[in-house]
């Protein structure tokens, strides 16, 4: 006999405890819901929601269903996370490299930025940007145009809208450019491996990515025009801008604080990654005659990325989860629209909170699967 009592007992007790706690909770929940006359079920998702959302990417008003409201919130969450991740990555990489600069001033400036922004709670930063900094912006009628087309006002940022004609042809041209670049890269790699000749892939790629869309404009009949926001008077003292795209101040405050905050952590990851590559690697690469660019591209970065990616993934996850702080400044994200307004209206606490948590779990897990796949791709292939 291989199993002992001492091996089975703790497992049984743990499982028993977990099952007991869960059944205790569900039992109470059933009684409570019966007493209050609430029935459990997800049928409310198809009912009419009858509330409005300030800012949504898809068409939405009170006559749509709760499920549509959920989608609106989810899309807003994804929008803010994606913008935040892009800005935070760019800023983080720049600051992380600046932290390694031999230039004393740049180094200290980057260090100051990192130490300053990461030691202040994110919620406080969001409040600061939203309630203090963005409230100091001019009213629409006093706003000065930036480059003649952007208007930054207390009611948000107004940018010109793109109006495309034959957008699909433009899209095809971009796709064609990308495909041809991939083909050329593969070809160049083969040529280099077989004949040792180097083809200037980078220049050709840049050329292609400009030439194909240009051709689509000249031949394909693609036209692009801008719709510039125009000031319009509603009443004697009330002005708004019409036309163009308006980004609400909540979105600006949220992306700004999320990316400034997360960039500090990404900067530290990047710094640790580059420092983690041994000095000998760089010297060895230089000694076999690689140019500085090649050293960075072929030797340093592949190794540094291996150290950088896992913690950076964590930061992306954190940013996505932190975007739920939007509820504090009334940006209509998933938590505010669904776990806030919809919950107040339907009173279905268990269903709505569980859907919200499940959504965040799915988002987190999908980001981590994606990054794990990438991480595995660039990991050392051991034989």
């Amino acid at each position, binding site marked *: 006999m291989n199993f002992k009592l*001492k*091996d089975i007992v*703790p*497992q049984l*007790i*743990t*499982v028993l405890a*977990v099952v007991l706690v869960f059944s*205790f*909770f*569900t039992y*109470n*929940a059933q*009684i*409570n*819901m019966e*007493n209050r006359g609430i029935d459990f079920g997800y049928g409310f998702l198809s009912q009419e929601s009858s509330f409005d959302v300030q800012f949504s990417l898809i068409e939405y008003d009170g006559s749509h269903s709760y499920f549509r409201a959920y989608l609106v919130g989810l899309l807003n969450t994804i929008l803010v996370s994606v913008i935040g991740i892009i800005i935070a990555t760019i800023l983080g990489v720049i600051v992380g490299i600046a932290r390694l*600069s*031999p*230039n*004393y*001033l*740049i180094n200290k*400036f980057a260090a100051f930025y990192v*130490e*300053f922004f*990461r*030691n*202040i*709670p*994110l*919620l*406080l*930063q969001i*409040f*600061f940007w939203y*309630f*203090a*900094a963005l*409230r*100091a912006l001019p009213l629409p009628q006093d706003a000065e145009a930036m480059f003649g087309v952007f208007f930054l006002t207390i009611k948000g940022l107004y940018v010109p809208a793109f109006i495309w004609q034959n957008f699909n042809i433009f899209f095809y041209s971009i796709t064609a450019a990308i495909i041809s670049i991939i083909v050329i890269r593969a070809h160049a790699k083969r040529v280099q491996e077989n004949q040792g000749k180097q083809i200037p892939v980078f220049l050709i790629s840049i050329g292609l990515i400009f030439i194909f869309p240009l051709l689509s404009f000249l031949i394909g009949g693609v036209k692009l025009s801008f719709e510039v926001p125009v000031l319009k008077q509603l009443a004697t003292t009330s002005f708004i801008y019409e036309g163009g795209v308006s980004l609400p101040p909540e979105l600006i405050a949220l992306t700004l604080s999320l990316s400034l905050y997360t960039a500090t952590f990404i900067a530290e990851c990047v710094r640790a990654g580059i420092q983690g590559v041994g000095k000998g690697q760089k010297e060895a690469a230089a000694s076999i005659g690689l140019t500085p660019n090649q050293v960075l591209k072929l030797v340093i970065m592949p190794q540094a990325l291996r150290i950088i990616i896992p913690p950076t993934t964590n930061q992306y996850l954190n940013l996505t*989860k*932190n975007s*739920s*702080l939007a*509820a*504090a400044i009334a940006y209509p994200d998933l*938590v505010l629209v669904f*776990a806030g307004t919809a*919950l107040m209206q339907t009173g279905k*606490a*268990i269903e709505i*909170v*569980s859907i*919200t*948590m499940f959504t*965040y*779990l799915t988002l*987190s*897990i999908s980001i981590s699967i994606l990054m794990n796949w990438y991480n595995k791709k660039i990991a050392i292939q051991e034989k």
Partner: protein
Amino acid sequence: MSNINFLKPDRTNLNTFLYLGSFLFFISILDVFLNSFFRLNLTGFLPNFLSFLLPLALGFVGLYFIRIEYSGIKNLDLLNKHINTNNFNAVLSLLIIFVIIKSLPPILSWFVIDASFAGDTKDVCTGSGACWTYIKVWMRRFMYGMYPNAEQWRINLSFVALMLLGSVGYFATDKFKKYLTLYYVVIYPLIAFLFIFFFISGGPVFFDFSYGIIAAILSIIIGFFIPSKFKFYYFLIVPLALYIILKYFLFFEEYIELGKLDGLNWVETGAWGGLSLTFIISFFCLIFCFPIGMAFALGRRSEFPLIRYISVGFIEFWRGVPLITVLFMSAVMFPMFLPEDFFIDKLVRAIIAISLFEAAYVAEVIRGGLQALPRGQYEAAKSLGMGYWKMHIFVILPQALKLVIPGIANTFLALVKDTPLIFVVGLLEIVGMLNLAKTNPKWLGFAMEGYVFAAIIFWIICYAMSKYSYNLEQKYKTDR
């Protein structure tokens, strides 16, 4: 003509270049400085964009001239090495210097020169600077929330006493050093809890909580005297039994009433707030999340598959959801899961929620430390005949915890920075109080001052904590 070199310094014209370069550099900085501090525009006669670029161009040429390798002048070499290695660096350095000079006057004037400190009404704040009067008037609210003014000495006294008791470790003689772990892990939390329970609250806040804590601590203390053979079963049975005995047989609410200090009014948790609440919540979550996290870290590396799956599920669940939804759950969903007459104070609910949430992060950090230990440590401990608990307590955990000090410190920092989120359950710590004060009709329009004030406080706390953790890391660093 080849020996006349206008653009690059050499041995013969080194001094000329040095003087010329320093002069240009100095002029460019002086121009920006005068412009920024005294509103003097030396280059005002030039067109707008030129006068903007001129100092940059002058400084760039100046730095180009003084970029002399191994000039033999020590300060110059240092300058070149640090801010002036090549053209690109020179431009960046100049830009940073200009930004600093340009931004100093507005910041200084807002913070100090134009700010108003005196008085205690809004009328004194007429200048363009900050209104620190606002902070002064609201100081008590920011520190203590809605805690009654007459009772605030209780919070102060408790915190001072706890700080004194917490600093015992620095004064302990060698004879008592070996008891310090016991003191900090078991006795100090108990004292802190009693202080907060009897003194700050003075009423029936933490009833159920207190049974649990007293039961846990009693059973740990008794556990030291139990022979190791029975320890496993002891810890399976006794804490729970003790809790039930305390709750249903021995420790009636009247006892707590008896233990109450005379003349202290009960202050309900809804009135707690401000910075003191930040400290209370951080403290409790810190002492709770650490053992829970450790348990789940060990559970995740357990040999028993069922325990492992449960631990993995717990950790991944809490790490996958944002704290705000966890607090939402504790506020709206959790009461549905409890018997109807059973009420848990919302502060306690928030503390439980945050503790469980942070425990998952602590668990992952500790797991990292456990995995980083070489297998030899485990094998050596086992070969000495140590059991699972003995091996972990005396060999594995002391080493693993030393390894993960930075990670744990980061988690605790995140915990402190997450406390403002309790606004979700209706508790107002310092950031929540700021938002409340901001909407007071008598004091409209001072959001900036409030947020800057809170930011400074949080920055000091977090920066001090991170520096302290760095010191700890250096102190416990062992070469392997």
